[in-house]
């Protein structure tokens, strides 16, 4: 084995370790906030470079495996980057860059930044990246706890009353989810004797129908990840807590946290428990449809931008799990495409709501308005993201829904087609509601003139606007270049069903 082969194998640890080192480095410069901002941006760019080279390499040579501590595969912990992990890392790094740029001016208030906001955000990315790239289910649990711990502190940073009460709900429900997860892992180890994804996949492939004990493990994991992903009926913590922290934190949470739960669901239920007859897929189907419907109805009823967006996350999660429930490679690819699209669009909407809030001083729909007259460019960006989320061609959401619906029709599953289409009408409605109230209608008379209209150039070249523009162009780009991206997600999803390459790479 040549030196270059060794170094390529170690590539998967790059993104998580880079994020970890960024967080530690930020701790060393406790009082230099400006420096911390640059450090975070630097860390995000390094993360991007690693992830991008991972995607390129994995796309060519197949899964890369880093054996931590040099232990052979089923015994030691491995970091495995297959195409899906690598792509998710890439998306994570893009979101991180965007939010790091957003932080430069007006993103988060200084007294929060003083208390290690930058380190915590980096540590959270560390947990997220680790969860995406790990090849061991117990290590997945550890990564979950890392990102949860960072997110707990991020959530209470600033000590507002709403933040604290929201954090309690968030904490309790997530610990219950961890309890389910740990229990499942313990029983799984007792039954199968391994915790490595590749080894689990190999050993469980011999079952046609899962024995009851393993079926129980599958259901426990469904509950555990379902809570983290925000699935019906265990999503109520999400609208209660996501809108409370400051915008960059909400945006990070909205973009990444539920997606880690979704990724784990996909990994576990395609890789480890793909078995029919375990009734898990029937459960996932019902849960997805109900999640989509309940989430969007909740969103329609809210009267503040961030609340609408937070509840709406729930509805979008349902689409992704619907793709998982249909259980074909095409449906899973559609789900994956949907997930990536949603990470961009939803994060961008949160960031835009932050800009709206900094312009008008509030995000309550009733007390705001008139953005369209003063800030045309921001309005266009909002429209791109919002219509993208609703699924208007040629934006990313259209293709995401198109692929998903095509996959459902191929399965003769017309109920989920109806649900997906019906829910997207309400999605459009909730986005139009934000548009009408915040952008289109005249501002109420008592609106304090928080910011006077600025010149076009000064309006656009602020850090906030640059980051929002970047993400909106990605939403647009995912629509325009839907073909190549779809090919990639199809390849990634085929690799989830045809686990041969992964298993061989890990257990080699």
């Amino acid at each position, binding site marked *: 084995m040549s030196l270059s082969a060794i170094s390529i194998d170690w590539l998967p640890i790059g993104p998580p370790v880079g994020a970890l080192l960024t967080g530690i480095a930020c701790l060393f410069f406790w009082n230099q906030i400006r420096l911390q901002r640059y450090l975070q941006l630097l860390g995000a760019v390094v993360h991007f470079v690693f992830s991008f080279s991972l995607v390129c390499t994995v796309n060519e040579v197949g899964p890369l495996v880093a054996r931590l501590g040099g232990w052979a595969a089923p015994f030691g912990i491995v970091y495995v980057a297959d195409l899906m992990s690598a792509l998710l890392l890439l998306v994570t790094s893009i979101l991180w860059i965007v939010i790091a740029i957003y932080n430069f001016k007006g993103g988060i208030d200084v007294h929060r930044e003083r208390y290690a906001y930058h380190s915590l955000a980096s540590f959270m990315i560390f947990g997220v990246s680790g969860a995406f790239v790990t090849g061991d289910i117990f290590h997945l649990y550890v990564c979950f706890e890392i990102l949860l711990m960072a997110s707990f502190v991020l959530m209470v940073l600033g000590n507002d009353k709403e933040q*604290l*009460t929201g*954090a309690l709900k968030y904490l309790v429900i997530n*610990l*219950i989810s961890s309890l389910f997860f740990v229990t499942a892992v*313990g029983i799984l*180890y007792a039954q199968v*004797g391994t915790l490595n994804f590749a080894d689990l996949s190999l050993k469980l492939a011999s079952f046609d129908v899962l024995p009851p004990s393993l079926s129980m493990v599958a259901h426990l994991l469904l509950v555990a990840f379902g809570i983290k992903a925000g699935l019906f009926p265990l999503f109520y913590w999400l609208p209660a807590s996501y809108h409370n922290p400051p915008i960059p934190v909400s945006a990070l949470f909205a973009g990444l946290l539920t997606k880690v739960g979704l990724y784990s669901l996909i990994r576990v239920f395609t890789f480890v428990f793909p078995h029919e007859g375990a009734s898990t897929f029937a459960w996932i189907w019902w849960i997805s449809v109900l999640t989509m419907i309940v989430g969007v109805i909740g969103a329609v009823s809210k009267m503040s931008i961030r609340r609408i967006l937070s509840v709406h996350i729930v509805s979008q999660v349902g689409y992704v799990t619907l793709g998982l429930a249909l259980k074909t490679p095409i449906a899973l690819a559609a789900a994956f495409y949907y997930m990536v699209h949603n990470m961009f669009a939803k994060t961008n909407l949160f960031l835009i709501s932050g800009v709206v809030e900094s312009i008008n001083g509030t995000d309550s729909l009733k007390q705001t308005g008139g953005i369209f007259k003063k800030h045309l460019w921001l309005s266009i960006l909002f429209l791109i993201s919002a219509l993208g989320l609703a699924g208007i061609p040629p934006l990313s959401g259209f293709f995401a829904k198109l692929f998903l619906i095509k996959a459902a029709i191929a399965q003769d599953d017309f109920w989920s087609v109806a649900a997906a289409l019906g829910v997207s009408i309400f999605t459009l409605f909730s986005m139009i509601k934000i548009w009408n109230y915040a952008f289109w209608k005249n501002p109420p008379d008592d609106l304090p003139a928080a910011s006077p209209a600025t010149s076009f150039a000064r309006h656009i070249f602020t850090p906030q606007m640059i980051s929002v523009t970047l993400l909106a162009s990605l939403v647009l780009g995912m629509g325009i270049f839907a073909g190549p991206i779809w090919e990639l997600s199809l390849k990634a999803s085929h690799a989830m069903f045809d686990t041969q390459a992964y298993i061989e790479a890990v257990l080699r």
Partner: protein
Amino acid sequence: MEAWIVIVVGVLLVLGFYLLMQRSVSRIILGLLVLSNAGNLVIFVAPGLVRAKAPIISGESLNGFLHADPLPQALILTAIVIGMGVLAFALGLVFKLIKVLGIEDVDEMRQE
């Protein structure tokens, strides 16, 4: 032996969930403590409890001895440490809720 520990796990789970459903914030935290220990015990008992040697194999001593599985012990240690960290955070949060905001009952938390 296993049966007893399984019963203990069951009792802990019942106790934990009962405490979680109380309205007092500090009882909720106690419930979390009990639940996390129930989870740890599941890992402990899951691979089976046997009288066996420590899993340190030197030379020829492999023959004839039953060796304990070291992995669950590593897992449970990790889980205990994580549980302790999370609990420390939870206690801090409850301290803030009670001392700073004067919230002791979850009903006082309603928003809107």
